[in-house]
Each structure stands twice: as C-alpha cells, then as structure tokens.
C-alpha cells in the first residue's frame, strides 16, 4: 500500500459528510436523523458531519417512498455527489413503501429501482442509534483503499 493511500484512509475515516434527502416520507425518519446530531448521540464525535449539501457529501441518506415529484430529480442529485459515494435507505419507506404502498397511492417504491442502495435500516422510524451504527459500519467498507480497489 502506498503512503498516499494510507494517508487517504486515515483522513477519510474521520471525515464523512452526510446529506439526507426526503423523497416522500411522513417526516418521522427525518427527525430521527436530526436527533443523531443531538449531544446525546453526537454523530460528530465519530467524524460524521451532516451538512445536507450533495456536492460535498460522501453518504446520502434516502428517506421516503419515492413520490412522482422526484422522478428525474433524485437521479440528478445522485450524479452531483462526487465519488466515492454510497446511499443508505433509512426506514421502511424506501425499502418497501411501508404503509404508503397500497392501491391508489402515488408512491413508487423501492428506491433501489432508481439509485443504487448499499445498505438498509428498517424501522418505522429506526432509532437514532441504529442510523448511527449503519453509517459507522458501512463507511470503512466503502472508503478504505478506494483508489486501489478501483484499479
């Protein structure tokens, strides 16, 4: 392993930027992601920063059951995120549609039809600790030795 690669691994393990996008949920998972910021859970002590800016994000948290309003926009948002990147589905809605996946509704789940999803956190809503654990366990898998594996 080159010195540059090991330096990149070191830096990336303590600097993960997170953006979240709500594609049609009930808002319950949104506030549980926000609760991760609270000093009790303190997501920033692990070097994870929630900025909600796709252009500097590494991890995209997708919340919600994919409504028609996001038809072309979610794809565009995903392309704006620089590599290496990964998307995590938070809650039951992006996995199965939860209670909204019924006849006559407008939603079109799962979100993995539209963008690649690397991990799923089920729950309606999941607890903040579960969201935190998913981000922490997925980040080293994706970002460690990214350049060497790409070659």
């Amino acid at each position: 392993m080159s010195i540059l690669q090991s330096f990149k691994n070191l830096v990336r393990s303590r600097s993960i930027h997170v953006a979240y996008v709500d594609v049609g949920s009930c808002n319950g998972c949104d506030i549980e992601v926000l609760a991760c910021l609270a000093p009790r859970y303190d997501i920033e002590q692990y070097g994870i920063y929630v900025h909600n800016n796709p252009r500097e994000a590494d991890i995209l948290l997708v919340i919600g059951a994919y409504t028609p309003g996001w038809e072309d926009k979610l794809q565009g948002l995903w392309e704006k995120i620089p590599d290496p990147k990964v998307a995590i589905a938070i809650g039951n809605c992006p996995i199965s549609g939860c209670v909204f996946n019924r006849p006559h509704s407008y939603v079109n789940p799962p979100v993995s039809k539209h963008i690649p999803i690397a991990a799923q956190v089920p729950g309606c809503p999941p607890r903040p600790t579960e969201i935190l654990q998913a981000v922490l366990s997925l980040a080293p898998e994706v970002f460690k030795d990214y350049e060497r594996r790409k070659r």
Partner: protein
Amino acid sequence: MKKTVDVSIPIGPVHPCFKEPARVKCETRGEYVLSAECELGYMKKGIELIMRGRPWQEVMFLAERICGICSVIHNMVFIEALEKISDIPVPERGALLRVIVNELDRMQSHILANFSYCYTIEHETLGMYLLDIRESAMDELERITGARVTCAYIVPGGVRFDLRDEDAVHLRASLDIIERDMKRYIRMFEGGPLIALRSKDVGVLTKESAKEAHAVGPTARASGMPETDMRLHHPTYQKLNFKPVFRTEGDNFARIMVRFEEIMQSIDLIRRCLDMLRPGPIRGGGIPSAGETVYRGEAPRGELSYYLKTDDAGRIVDISVQTPSIMNIEACTHYMLKGVASLADVPSTFISADPCIACTER
C-alpha cells in the same frame, strides 16, 4: 420601462436549512425580496386515497403517519372525531393521560422548531442545547407510550396503557430539569444582541394580514390572535383553565418566543394533569357507528381539522384532512417574505413559520 425584478432565485428543494423538500422562489431587486412563492409537490403520497374504504383500525395507524413530528395530535383528532360520531365516552383518567401525551408531543415539536431556527441563523450552540433537552421529552414520551415517534397511544374510549406511579415520579423529575434548563435557554435567546439583530423586525406579519391569510397556531398567536387556539374548545383543557399565550409584534422573534412560552405552559399543564390524576379506568367501551362529522384540534403548528364519514361496520367512507402548515406557508410566502431586506433572511423567516411539508401535502 424601468426594470423591477433583477433575478428570480429558487431556494430548495434540497437546502442545508430545510428539513424537508420545498422550493421557495424569490423575485429580488438587489438583496430586497419583492415577492415570493412556494412550490410544493415533492411529498404528495395520496394518503387520504389510501384511507378511504378501510376499517378504522387501519386508518388509525395511517392517520398518525400523516406527520411524524406531530403524530400524537393526528391520532388524537382522528379518534376524537370517531368518538364524536359514535358517542363513545372517555373516562377522566384517560382524558387526562391524552392531554399529558399531547403536551409532551407539543413540547418536543416546539423545541425542534426552535432548534431549526437557531440552526438557520447559525446559532449552533443554542440549537444543540435545545436538541439535547428535546431528548428528555422524547424519553418521557417513550416511557409512557412505548415508542418515540408514531406511538398509537390513543384508542377509542381512552388510552392504551396506564401511567405507572414510578413513571409519574420520573416524569415530574424530568419536567423539573426541562423547566430549569429551558428558563436558561429562553434568557439566552431573549438577551442575545446578535439574535435580536437577526430576528427582531424581520418577516413581520401584521394582525390584519394574519387574518387575511388565515394564519393559525403560533404564527397567528405571535401576531396577536389568541382566539385561534383550538384548545380553548376542548373539554379537558377547559377543565384545566387553559389560557393561550400570545404576542403582538408578529416578527421572527415573537414567533420563536411564543413557542418558548408554550413549552413552559405545556410543562405547567402536564403538572396540573398529574395533580388531577385519580385511580380509575383508562378505557371505556363502545362501538364505532355510522355518521359524519368535522372535528378540530390544536396541533403544534395550529388548527387541524378532520372531516370524517363512516358506515355501520366502522369503515371510513370519506375522509379529508386540513393541516395547519398550508395556511402558514401561504401567510409566510405572501406576507412575511414580501419586503424582507436581505436574501439571507429568507430561509430563517420561512423556518420561523415552522412549515411541515409532509403534513401539508400528505
């Protein structure tokens, strides 16, 4: 002809300050905002279409998934509309427990709204203090109901679980901590000179324009309209001698302060409920029957009304929900944002009206 609009600036749908997707389009001349418009439609799920033709046992869980922040009040208003149709009585202990859970939910929602505002004006310290104290309220909600969000605590004829004595003791201790800390945070917000510069006289909504726009909730009460509080018409709150808080300035500062004062009032209401609790049944009996009604309740963001029509088997034939945020978004974009001196104040003014896009579009 003189050019009036320089640039039309869209804010959103994904924006660092917005919790949920909404697009605010501002027509500006220099930094001065001439007019604004809110573009919705990113969250429309059609939940009322799903509800029609289903039994009330299913619609009860769908109703609280209209909004995740104020799930308790959606549950409460739907169940009380069903009780009004079918004349189901509620025991006194059950009614008081409903008020306790509802006020805890209002507290956490108001704290979250004030956190969002502090985060938007870049006062991150106060925001984090508020988010920390919110976890105490969420813990109490979880102790009583068994879940943090979407707890389905209120059922026809009463509530699902009783409040144990040790939980009541723990609730009182938590309320003391929240009250002590909240007093300190209110002093921080009131006395901060930079907060006052960002908040006072920004986004003013006068009483006349609040009436015109039919503003509801803390937004209307900050403009001097205490009669908009629907808790005045609720029998349990009337027993508790509820008096709404209000202010007359109508700017961002007043809206946040009304929320802070309502948190203190909620603490007081919960204490009085705990004093009035007597041992007894928490759930009576009754069968939902056919009928039609409109029922209103006070959500953390304002007046929430349900139109409900049921058949003999307890199925929902027709339902229509009017949520408070749609009124406040109209009031915000057409009256508050018009004439905002700087574009930097647009997100903070929008957040100060506490828009909840998930319940606006359903």
